[in-house]
């Protein structure tokens, strides 16, 4: 998830404190795909969605100075999440087509009070959870043998029946119950860990 390395570095310059720089790094890794997916769900095309993602991240980055001078009482991570949520909602709900990206536009994303839009807020939360689970899945999958992971995908995600999965994989029914339960447990554990780190 480091598609704009140059920008990322320049964004990082905004964060002076080293510990906050790490928090920012993590934030970008999780929120970049979150924003992108939200934009795609609003029917933006790939390139436009990338654009909007970039815009929101720049907007959040440019306001970091404000946190460093004013808001130090709030934890940086929490502050980032709140600011990002507002910027996303603003970007998604008020974005006219084809408008130029300039500093003033970006600051608009930050300055305006976010419109109360519970629906978008809910979507932001869902996509955030999705990203956590996707990352957890990556971690867990690396630890599980491929056949077991396929069984999990087939029965839990794709809704295949246990009997059919047993037939196709050659695993016993007991083995399938055991394997998929353990994967679910590991996924939840991994998600909790990610949440704590975020």
């Amino acid at each position, binding site marked *: 998830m480091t598609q704009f390395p140059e920008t990322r570095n320049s964004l990082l310059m905004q964060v002076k404190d080293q510990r906050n720089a790490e928090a920012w790094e993590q934030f970008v890794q999780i929120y970049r795909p979150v924003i992108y997916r939200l934009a795609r769900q609003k029917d933006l095309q*790939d390139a436009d969605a990338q654009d909007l993602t970039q815009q929101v991240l720049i907007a959040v980055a440019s306001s970091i100075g404000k946190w460093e001078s004013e808001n130090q009482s709030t934890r940086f991570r929490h502050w980032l999440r709140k600011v990002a949520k507002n910027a996303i909602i603003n970007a998604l709900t008020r974005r006219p087509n084809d408008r130029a990206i300039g500093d003033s536009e970006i600051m608009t994303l930050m300055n305006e009070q976010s419109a109360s839009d519970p629906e978008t807020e809910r979507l932001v939360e869902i996509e955030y959870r999705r990203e956590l689970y996707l990352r957890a899945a990556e971690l867990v999958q690396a630890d599980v043998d491929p056949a077991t992971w396929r069984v999990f995908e087939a029965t839990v995600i794709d809704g295949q029946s246990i009997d059919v999965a047993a037939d196709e994989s050659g695993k016993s029914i007991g083995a399938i119950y055991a394997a998929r339960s353990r994967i679910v447990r590991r996924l939840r554990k991994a998600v909790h860990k990610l949440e704590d780190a975020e």
Partner: protein
Amino acid sequence: MNSLTDTCHRSLLESFLQDDLNVVEERDLTLHLNECEKCRSELESRAGEPAAWDEISQLLKPQPFDDDEATWHGPQPSAQIQNIIESLAPTDDPNMLGRIGGYEVSGVVGAGAMGVVLKAHDKSLDRTVAIKVLSPMLASSGAARKRFAREAKAAAAVLHPNVMAIHSVSNDELLPHLVMPYVRGSSLQKRMDDNGFLAVGEALRIGSQIAAGLAAAHAQGLVHRDIKPANIMLEEGVERVAITDFGLARAVDDATMTRTGVIAGTPQYMSPEQARGELIDQQSDLFSLGALCTQCAPDALLSALKLAMGSCIEFPIRNRGRFVKSIPRFRNGCATLLPV
């Protein structure tokens, strides 16, 4: 059946979920789960409440634009081509696109993950050449550029009819490139896309020529790292096969590893150790060759192919040490199976 598999032990369920059981205990529990529905549902609710199972099944469902997201790294080929053409030095010849090194560029042959291939004219020797330009994204990494030059030089030292020759290599800061003969023809990938599976005789002929080319390069200590149909050139008219891009996957590796954590190579043809990101040697290429041959021929012909190259498919897992010795055997096998 012993008592463990017959009776319910609720405490074992939690231990199982926490990975605390040994192999025997896990086996017994699995056997028990085959029969006991109560323990199954107990296990599932201990793993996560129903809402958690729902959330997982909802959130991990593939999204319609997942593929876009996966490919949103790096510039699209057309932008890449444009980029490279704009970086060419100006030329006096109105029929040419620009200049690179001493060569007049007349067109673009193709583009891939690694860069762009240009068609160019070598004025001093009056011959047509193909120039492979490393993509600017990769060229911006010093390590990748050096590796590119080093690997290309090593590959240039291999003189074999089945390995694409390299005329020269340039470690130019802006546009690192290598110069190869211009070959009229298509890649094996294109041939398969256009014509489908190969006939068994053809598959064997191509497979054995690749094996011969690999043997020559391996003898010099080179590893290709990305043997796949797209890297096999078939010359038009003559039946000659040439392997291209020796070792270049490694330059990509250098540039992308630090950025995205991606292992260079092509999954379908990757040996297990390469996929695991471990150190690889010549044997990994043979694994890829095995995978390539398997893909070239329809199922009905596989048995014949396997006879000739069974060692390629099975040895990588069973006995890697003996695998290197199977190159000559593979070639002989191909030869005996070729229809007269």
